[in-house]
């Protein structure tokens, strides 16, 4: 093919969600607080504020809600979809079916409406005349431009304000609490009163237009509940940044990459706000590196010098960090690396989700290397595990990888508020000048305590015996250069021992339910949300009770082995092609337990949904 066929390319992107859906909506009179809204738009059009107001209004109505942004890997002008799910039962995974479409992108609107299940609703620009394509969908055409022009005299602002019209239309159709909407809107525009007023006028215009012109003929309603009281909304990257701040992280070296950049950008904001003294001096250093090799090099250098240091990256950055990761393992240097995973391999789909770096991170670098991974499964865990990661890096004297992903990192999630850390920072085994005087010296890599972890000193320790020589080449207990076979084996076996120690220090798995069923599920990270929902589907629809364990770290603790051993079949649910978590389990398990493992994989770049799990499991079980 000789030309980048524009039509083809465009449609390839347009119809991202175009597969006609097979799960039909059974018609009912009303469906309250249990449906999804999708806003189809183009990126760069400024719909984020409107979507956020919609999301937060539902939240303020006390209804559990979640939002997902499905955006293209460019800056402006391409199709983008924002999905809001309201769920009285608190389900926050992606829902496959779209119940309400707000079609703002003329380029995709035909495909968008075609993808709706029967009985859905669609709000769209009048002139697009989408009704022609579907008579089984409730249609609400809106003259957006006319309404916008009426409330917004300044032509330049109309593109942005237009989005608020659909908030008003939706609010009317869904019978939303307009006080909640206004409150959400005013908070959104906090200090910009004029902007708030203008946008509020647009919401009202939409509301009034809908009230005057539409007869509701869809079942979807929002009714106040009391399920979000005291809860917060935050994305995983912001949560991890917050955790890093409270972990006392002082050195950050990073290179921008989607979807990890906002983690560091949040850290920068927080550090500037909370970590600068009255004299203007900072207790942190944040440096934009020239690339990821430099970023991890600096993180390890800082860790060596005694600082709590971190970087954040995604797949391509992880690959570039391979050589240094091996140095970190072998020379035993602390450091925290957040891997906010996206769809690989290579550049892959930078704005799509995946849990695809597990195998490569676990064995990142040549030779016999192994790395500790923490796997947050919620925004709260992004916060908590950030703190764990810094503690563990210094306790274990090794790089710690925190395996988040795009879905968790860049989307908004409800959560219990985060708790203030009760324990002091655990700085690991560090000897002071006084210690050295008392002990008369030390041997850096000696396994004094039987846990495989030696004692270290920091540069600058004021004692003639404090210094030691750090190297990625062969070294003995005293950190001296060696090529002796027995020194080498001795050291490598200690490192294995240290890795065993890690099993009990890392966050232990969450056993959601065990001992009731012969079938176990294992999930982790963002596969958790859909897995929980699927369990309910299985119970409700198939009377199938399942036990469930959520992995929170690698290396695996004994509890994981026990869970697997005590079930006949264990489904490992994950978002990658090659069953990477199952692979890691397989490597860790005895054959008698391996037979129990089954795989459920989802890897098309969209966040995992419950139905995919349920269908796959049911078919594997032959139900």
């Amino acid at each position, binding site marked *: 093919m000789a030309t980048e066929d524009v039509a083809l390319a465009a449609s390839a992107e347009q119809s991202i969600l175009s597969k006609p859906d097979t799960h039909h909506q059974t018609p009912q009179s009303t469906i309250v607080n249990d449906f999804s809204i999708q806003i189809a738009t183009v990126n760069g059009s400024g719909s984020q504020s409107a979507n956020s107001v919609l999301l937060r209004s539902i939240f303020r109505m006390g209804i559990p809600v979640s939002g997902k942004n499905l955006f293209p890997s460019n800056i402006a002008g391409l199709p983008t979809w924002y999905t809001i799910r309201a769920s009285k039962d608190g389900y926050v995974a992606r829902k496959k079916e779209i119940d309400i479409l707000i079609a703002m992108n003329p380029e995709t609107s035909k495909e968008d409406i075609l993808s709706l299940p029967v009985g859905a609703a669609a709000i769209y620009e009048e002139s697009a005349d989408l009704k022609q394509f579907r008579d089984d969908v409730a249609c609400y055409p809106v003259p957006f431009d006319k309404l916008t022009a009426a409330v917004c005299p300044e032509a330049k602002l109309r593109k942005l304000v237009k989005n608020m019209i659909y908030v008003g239309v939706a609010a009317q159709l869904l019978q939303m609490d307009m006080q909640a909407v206004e409150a959400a809107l005013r908070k959104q525009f906090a200090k910009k009163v004029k902007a708030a007023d203008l946008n509020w006028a647009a919401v009202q215009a939409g509301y009034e237009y809908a009230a005057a012109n539409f007869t509701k003929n869809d079942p979807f309603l929002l009714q106040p509940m009391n399920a979000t009281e005291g809860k917060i*909304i935050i994305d995983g990257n912001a949560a991890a940044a917050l955790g890093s701040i409270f972990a006392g992280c002082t050195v950050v070296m990073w290179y921008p990459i989607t979807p990890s950049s906002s983690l560091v950008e949040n850290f920068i904001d927080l550090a500037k706000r909370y*970590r600068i003294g009255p004299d203007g001096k900072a207790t942190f250093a944040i440096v934009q590196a020239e690339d990821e090799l430099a970023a991890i*090099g600096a993180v390890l250098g800082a860790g060596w010098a005694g600082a709590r240091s971190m970087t954040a990256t995604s797949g391509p950055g992880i690959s570039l960090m391979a050589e*240094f990761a091996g140095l970190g393992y072998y020379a035993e240097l602390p450091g925290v690396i957040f891997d906010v995973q996206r769809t690989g391999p290579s550049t892959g789909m930078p704005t799509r989700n995946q849990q695809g770096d597990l195998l490569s991170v676990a064995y990142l670098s040549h030779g016999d290397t192994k790395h500790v991974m923490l796997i947050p499964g919620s925004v709260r865990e992004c916060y908590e595990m950030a703190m764990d990661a810094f503690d563990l890096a210094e306790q274990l004297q090794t790089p710690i990888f925190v395996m988040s992903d795009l879905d968790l990192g860049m989307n908004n999630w409800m959560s219990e508020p985060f708790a203030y850390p009760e324990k002091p920072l655990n700085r690991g085994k560090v000897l002071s000048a006084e210690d050295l005087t008392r002990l008369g010296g030390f041997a850096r890599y000696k396994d004094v305590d039987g846990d495989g972890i030696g004692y270290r000193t920091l540069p600058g320790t004021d004692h003639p015996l404090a*210094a030691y020589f750090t190297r*990625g080449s062969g070294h003995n207990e005293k950190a001296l250069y060696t090529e002796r076979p027995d020194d080498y084996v001795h050291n490598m076996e200690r490192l294995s021992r240290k890795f065993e120690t890690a099993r009990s220090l890392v966050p232990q798995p969450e056993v959601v339910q065990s001992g009731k069923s012969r079938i176990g599920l294992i999930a982790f990270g963002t596969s958790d949300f859909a897995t929980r929902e699927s369990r309910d589907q299985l119970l409700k629809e198939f009377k199938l009770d399942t036990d469930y364990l959520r992995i929170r770290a690698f290396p695996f603790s004994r509890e994981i082995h026990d869970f697997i051993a005590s079930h006949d079949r264990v489904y490992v649910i994950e978002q990658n092609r090659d069953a990477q978590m199952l692979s890691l389990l397989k490597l860790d398990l005895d054959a008698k337990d391996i037979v129990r493992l089954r795989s459920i994989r989802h890897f098309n770049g969209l966040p995992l949904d419950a139905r995919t799990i349920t269908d796959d499991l049911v078919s594997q079980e032959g139900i």
Partner: protein
Amino acid sequence: MATNPVPSAPLEAPRTPAKTNRIGLQVLDYRGGKTTLCAGCGHNAISERIIDAFYEMGVQPERVMKLSGIGCSSKSPAYFMSRSHSFNSVHGRMPSVATGALLGNHTMKALAVSGDGDSASIGIGQFVHLMRRNVPMIYIIEDNGVYGLTKGQFSATADIGSKLKTGVINDLPPIDTCTLAIQLGATFVGRSFSGDKKQLLAMLKAAIAHNGTVLLDVISPCVTFNDHEGSTKSYKYMQEHDEAIDEVGFVPFFQEIDVEYDPGTTINVQMHDGSHMRLRKLHEDFDPTDRVASIAAQLHAHANNEVLTGVFYINTQQPSFTEMLNLVDEPLGTLPDDRVRPGRAVLEEMMQRLM
């Protein structure tokens, strides 16, 4: 908590009271392990000068971090100043490790040793960005024009026309790390020769007194792979082509300034710590505080097949990278919990915002 003491190497008991420096240490206290480099390798001579410079300047060895990449040159930190913490990292990526280490503890003096392969071939990317940042450290390239440790292939500083023992001739232009460094933002740049004890020592002492990136490209012949006829990095070639652009004198801050100098021919540079560097001009029109002129001098010398040595550029005004970051005075790495973990109220406030 128990650790196993390692006996420190017994120091020979001196018969007469040993000579000590201004902080009471002997030169022995600046020594390192026995070298495993080839006898006659230029790198060993540089190690000796480093020992002398730190001894004479009276720097507490515990306050120094040694950093290096991979190569014969990068091994050398094991052979001097054993009382300093040292980090022999990976090939070509020492600059990032050094940057991180200095961010972790910006109160330390950092001394980095690299090779021409380590810095100009695999490492040029990190080199460029380190210079740009003016990270406060001494960066020595032990420059022999070849990869010693992998047995003598050309590096990116090899000159056009330079010949290997195997007869292979280099036909790519050399990367001049000094010109690059000046251009990119380093604030103290010069070249020396491992065989020129006096010049190298003076430059090292001045380097210790400087606050900012010091780049010293030290021609350091590889006796095993690049010291033959036809090499432009041999002892002989240097003896014939070394052209000092200035004569470097140094008066440390703890010494009285008694030496007279002629302001017409000599530039007196007051260093960060109060020391003085005296650069007696040997080339007309040369001004080591003028970036553009300094670069032009290099370019002209290249065209004339001269190997300029001396201090090429000095700027004591530009704040260093850690100064620009406006860090607290203490090392970031060892700040107590309460200075790096905000209080409960901050979390409360954050949570309120997010509700």
